């Protein structure tokens, strides 16, 4: 799936090789059991294939920390998602328990996928903290906190406020936001119903298992049909058992869809960042406009708009010309600063739009390509399932004349 596009991937192989259960005290000083994953980095074969770094063990929360760091540091990038935190879209046989071995295994694959995606991104792959995450057992946590990224993070309140109040977000971003909302809705609906279909299918196959036992018992009392019934019973058992493999493969397909479901969150992040920058630009422009207006009032003495100064000067008398001069000067400086701010913000906005739009384009191409492949492999899976089950049926019946002769 991954082409070695980046310099990083040309040098190293990334593997999330194993998982292990650990016990320890958590942040509120209580004992808990959690899973850690082994990150194995090796030089590529051409470079000798030896291990690189400490081969650190990382737990899920550390992956989350890394991802948050990347989100804050590269807001214009569509950051690859992590595998789900809790098992969702489960159907009855699938466990919702985070410590369940199947869940852990699928999570291991998901984490590996995440790392490889980051490593294949032209910008993200160059990040030092990322490389440290891959290679340094100790000190990574301190290093990432030292970057101070948490201070740079936009508060949720600020972000939400911007989303609500922004006046002129770029149309392509509003469209993108709508698309990601709709895609999110479509895929989650699909996954929910898929889980129900899997559940029902499991039920049908498993009930067939009962046939096996009954045919066996029945064959004991039938002189003439005995062999045929035994054979039929055996095939029913095989048929019934085959559903486990079928549904396990389908889970991989579901995981591929889930990845893109979570990608929609990353898309929305980018849109929100745009709205925030746009909003800040709009605020800066407004700020500049109001200061200019203040200057005008001060210069002409005309009070066009109600202001506290105007009120107080009416009540307490006008100020002296010297006072006015100094105030004007301060204002002029402020205006200068504001103009610079507007220019900067404008620049930031345009840069952000340019870079993120490129990112979005790349992402869309990747999505179309990969989801198409996922659909194709889904079809292939269905075909191999039909062949396998059909063959089993076939040996039971068609030779139907074989079975019926013995029946």
């Amino acid at each position, binding site marked *: 799936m991954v082409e070695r596009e980046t310099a990083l991937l040309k040098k190293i192989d990334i593997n999330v090789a194993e998982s292990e259960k650990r016990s320890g005290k958590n942040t509120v000083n209580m004992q808990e059991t959690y899973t850690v994953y082994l990150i194995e980095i090796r030089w590529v074969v051409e470079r000798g294939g030896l291990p690189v770094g400490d081969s650190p063990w990382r737990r899920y929360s550390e992956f989350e920390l890394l991802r948050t760091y990347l989100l804050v540091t590269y807001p214009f990038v569509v950051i690859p998602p992590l595998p789900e935190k809790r098992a969702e879209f489960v159907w009855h046989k699938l466990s919702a328990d985070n410590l369940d071995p199947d869940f852990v295994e699928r999570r291991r694959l998901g984490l590996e996928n995440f790392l490889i995606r980051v490593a294949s991104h032209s910008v993200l792959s160059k990040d030092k903290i990322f490389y440290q995450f891959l290679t340094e057992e100790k000190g990574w946590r301190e290093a990432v906190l030292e970057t101070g990224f948490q201070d740079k993070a936009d508060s949720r309140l600020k972000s939400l406020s911007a989303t609500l109040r922004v006046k002129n977000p770029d149309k392509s971003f509003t469209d993108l936001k709508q*698309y990601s909302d*709709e*895609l999110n809705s*479509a*895929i989650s*609906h*699909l996954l929910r*119903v*898929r889980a*129900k*279909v899997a*559940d*029902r*299918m499991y*039920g*049908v196959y498993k*009930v*067939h298992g*009962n*046939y096996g036992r*009954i045919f066996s*018992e*029945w064959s004991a*009392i*039938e*002189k*003439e*049909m005995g062999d*045929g019934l035994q054979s*039929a019973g055996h095939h029913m058992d095989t048929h019934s058992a085959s559903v486990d493999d079928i549904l396990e493969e389908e889970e991989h397909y579901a995981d591929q869809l889930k990845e893109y479901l979570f990608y929609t969150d990353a898309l929305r992040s980018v849109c929100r960042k745009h709205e925030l920058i746009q909003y800040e630009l709009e605020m800066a422009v407004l700020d500049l406009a109001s200061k200019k207006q203040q200057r005008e009032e001060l210069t002409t003495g005309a009070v066009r708009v109600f202001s506290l100064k105007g009120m107080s000067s009416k009540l307490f008398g006008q100020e002296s010309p010297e006072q006015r001069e100094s105030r004007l000067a301060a204002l002029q400086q402020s205006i200068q600063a504001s103009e610079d701010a507007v220019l900067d913000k404008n620049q930031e906005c345009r840069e952000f739009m340019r870079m993120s739009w490129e990112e979005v384009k790349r992402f869309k191409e990747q*999505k*179309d390509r990969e*989801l*198409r492949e996922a*659909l*194709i492999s*889904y*079809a*292939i899976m*269905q*075909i191999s399932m*039909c*062949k396998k*089950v*059909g063959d089993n*049926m*076939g040996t*039971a*019946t*068609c030779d*139907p*004349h074989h*079975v*019926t*002769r013995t*029946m």
Partner: protein
Amino acid sequence: MVWKRRSYTYTKAQAPVLSGDLEEDLDLEEDEDLEVFSKNPSLAVGSSVSSSVVQGSLVHSPGALVRSSGSMVNQYGLEEEEEEEEEEARGGVPTRDLFVTVDHPESHVTAIETFIVYRVLARTTRGDFDSSEYEVHRRYQDFLWLRGKLEEGHPTLIIHPLPEKFVMKGLVERFSEDFIETRRRALQTFLSKTAEHPMLSRSPQLKVFLTEQDLTAIKKQGPSFLSRMGDSVRAAAIAVRGVRARPQEFGAMQDYADEFSCKMSALDKVTQRIIKEQNEYLEELSQYGPLYSQWAELEADLSEPLRGVAGCLDLCGRETEEQLRHLTEVLQPTLHQYLLCADTLKTVLRRRDHIQAEFEAKNDALASSAVSKKGDLETLKEEAAGLEERVESANSALKGDWARWGDAMRYDLREALVSTADKNQDYYEKCLAVWETFLLSQKTPPGQEED
């Protein structure tokens, strides 16, 4: 295909006990495989059963399916010879000369009640029928009457069961299409099997059932009800005592009947469960496919493969419906009918036991020295001899019919199971084709696809 001729030779000893009042109507031709009934069963010579029951491998006509419904026209013509072979395998009369169908259920409304009436068509080449085609209308109660009469006349023959009386089961309506159709098929099977049975097809009540326009007058006739009461009281008294020296072969049959009943009940339940699960699966599946189409509306390049998948799921859903239809219309009813048959087996064995118990009671009375007058002794001896005859004939009838029934059962169940397996095979092949077509469409770049 090797097959062996089976003949179910019923000698005089196996003559059925006739209910007295209809003997005058009998005018049966001689048939090489059937002996003429003796009007007085006690004249029958006690000879052993000579039905040649051949064990071992059985004939199976490829492609021939048990048709429980469908027009009679299909049963003529080119397939007649196959039909004959098939019938022999099923334990039927080698030359079929009576064909029946049950169809056209219609609602009949009177002041007191509403019920369903079925059209019963009969076609025959038999001389004892005045015409070659008959059309009458019968309701479920009429079928009940017929079967009751057949049981009276042939207490130890295995008569095919009728569909059950209506039981309020959940939301199933008495007049729902499904219920009526299932019942119609079962009634059809009942009549066909009865018409195929070498003894039962000669029953006068069957003839009346098939030919008389108005059955109500005939149903009122007959002493049966009160005499049956008397019989059953006596039977109950003997049942308390039970049969002493049941021949080993009937003991084996009893064990078989019990086991068979168990298995059929289990199979019936499992099949019903599968049908339920399959229905629920279909419901979910029907919602699944359209979600891909809905997603496709959001997409550009991805829209085409998404629609493709939606189409595939839709087609597979239809194949599942087909599979389900077969389960509901073929496998389930067959299993259910044989579940009811199991009860018939047990009933027939019980009746045989009663007949033997009656004889044993008479023998005991004979053996006990309580008999005083010589005249009484003679009467007792005659009665005992008569009862011994009854036991002999009941035993032979049962043994002969048991073998016949067994063949029919194996044939029917095998057919039902094999056809179900074939349907399943079909399903997987069709689904395979659907997905392969989709794959093919994805290999050619869009825009260059052929339809």
